[in-house]
């Protein structure tokens, strides 16, 4: 019976994405409960070289497919190799980080294997009766569901980034490298990523940031978003926004925090001129610390804020930015 855990290791430009390393701590717990080992699947040129980084983190074997077809994300090719890897690993559980790529690949793999998938888990465990059980935020965090996969194998589980820690490395550990042959050729791939566009001015993504400063309608004018950007810049934080200002065209949707934007849980979330519609609160209430700056003392945002300043953001924010610059210099 399959008892191993297979972790899909996402790479960009040869670098392993951190959420994939975080998945290894969940993999350790599961492998212990199942009495199995951890295999990792790495794709694209240089895949085998990941063994040096992965072995100290508990990976026994690296299944590597270095085919050039896998350099950029190609869902059809990725799922074909992943299907082979599941068989080669004798995997009872497949873990992926719930990143843009993981959220895309996990369901395709589950459907290929006619099995069940759990998306965006914040806890995962294996019972003595081998049920795979996970907790995951639903309704953008307004509730938490406990879901279980009793017998479908492998259970495919994607894990929310920045919830699980990267395991402590054990120096000196080594991992076996198993080369996989890509079962598809370029002619079999009907759709794939042909290029990656990275903005000239690299902006921090709210989904990945440990600090976020978000602006809302209280800013009154799109030009005033400069206040939010300055504060974010002083902190090294990402710039977020409420739905109202995204819908008004002040800032692109990629910055939107909330139920139809991104659900975030940074260490520090500063809400500037955001009253706190329920959809916005759902998207940021799991932040570790929340600061609200709003002139309306009754604004719902204060109900979730750890620290609040009731006042005119046009007076408060420039002073706050200056004070933070002072402390950081």
């Amino acid at each position, binding site marked *: 019976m399959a008892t191993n855990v297979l972790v899909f290791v996402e790479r960009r430009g040869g670098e392993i*994405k951190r959420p994939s390393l975080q998945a290894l701590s969940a993999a350790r717990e599961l492998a212990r409960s199942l009495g199995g080992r951890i295999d990792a699947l790495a794709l694209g040129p240089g895949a085998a070289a990941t063994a040096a980084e992965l072995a100290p983190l508990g990976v026994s074997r690296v299944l590597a497919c270095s085919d050039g077809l896998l350099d950029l994300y190609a*869902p059809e090719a990725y*799922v074909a190799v992943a299907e082979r890897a599941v068989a080669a690993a004798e995997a009872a559980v497949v873990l992926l980080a719930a*990143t*843009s*790529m993981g959220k*895309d690949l996990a*369901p*395709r793999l*589950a*459907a290929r294997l*006619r099995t*069940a998938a759990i*998306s965006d888990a914040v806890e995962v465990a294996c019972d003595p009766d081998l049920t795979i*059980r996970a907790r995951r*935020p639903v*309704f*953008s*965090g307004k*509730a*938490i*569901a*406990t*879901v*279980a996969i009793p017998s479908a194998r492998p259970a495919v589980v994607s894990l929310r980034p920045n919830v699980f820690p990267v395991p402590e490395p054990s120096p000196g550990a080594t991992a076996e490298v198993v080369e996989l042959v890509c079962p598809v050729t370029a002619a079999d791939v*009907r*759709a*794939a*990523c*042909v290029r*990656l*566009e990275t*903005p000239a001015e*690299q*902006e921090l*993504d709210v989904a990945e940031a440990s600090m976020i400063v978000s602006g809302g309608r209280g800013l009154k004018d799109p030009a005033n978003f400069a206040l939010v950007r300055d504060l974010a810049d002083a902190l090294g934080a990402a710039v977020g926004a409420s739905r109202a200002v995204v819908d008004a065209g002040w800032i692109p*949707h*990629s910055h*939107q925090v909330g*139920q*139809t934007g991104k659900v975030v849980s940074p260490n520090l979330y500063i809400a500037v001129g955001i009253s706190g519609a*329920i959809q916005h609160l759902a998207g940021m*209430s*799991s932040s570790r*610390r*929340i*600061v609200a700056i709003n002139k309306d003392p009754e604004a719902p945002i*204060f109900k*979730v*804020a*750890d*620290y*609040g*300043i*009731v*006042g005119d953001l046009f007076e*408060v924010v420039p*002073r706050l930015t200056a004070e*933070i610059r002072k*402390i950081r210099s």
Partner: protein
Amino acid sequence: MKIVVAIKHVPDTEARIKVGSDGASIDETGLKWIASPFDEYAVEEALQLRDAAGSGEVVVIGAGPAEAAATLRQGLAMGADRAVLVEDARFFYADGLARAEALAAVARAESPDLVLMGKQGVGPDESQTAPMVAELLGLPHVTAVTRLEISGGRFTAHREIEGAVEVHEGTLPVVLSIDKGINEPRYASLKGIMAAKKKALETRTPGDVGVSDDRLGRGALLRWEALSLPPARGEGRRFEGDVDTQVGELVRVLHEVEKLI
């Protein structure tokens, strides 16, 4: 151009979620249900593509309770041509693959050039359906598309990933999930709403589309065992004094107590 758009029937994003008496599902008392907001972008994109092509059909489909018919009617009111609902209230808590099997079976019978849907059903937030439907149909897929161009049987789709944009290219037919930002969904006009009442809305059972009763019941691959609310965040501290005092105290606390800055 023939386009199938899947629409999910979900609780209103404005709704407060309460736990039902079984401790595992939501309390539906007084709950308003809507089309998942991301699906509206998919419907809009389909209508624009059909109209630009000058001919074709947009078929909206769903898997949900009888009330989901009203949600599909919204798609018809926006301008879709007809609708197919696989009716069973258990789909909401079923595993993603069961829902995908039902939708894929309906889509397959339409032989579409494109299958579209929102990037996630708001609520369950699983983002599973598009890749699963694509796999079951044997088609390629792209998820979370923010820009789409189609010409000569080929497509170019942009998807935003962490700090970058992936540009995908490929051939039709394809399954695409759509993100906000791609277009501005139209409001249904009064005329559209009236016309929608006369448009065809077929209803099927799960059995009609090859999803066994067992898959929606005891034989489900995934069980919702419990639903709970996150711990309430107590209201914290409000600073007092003039602006300089308040800002100074906030910075001190974030620096010295929280060690965040």
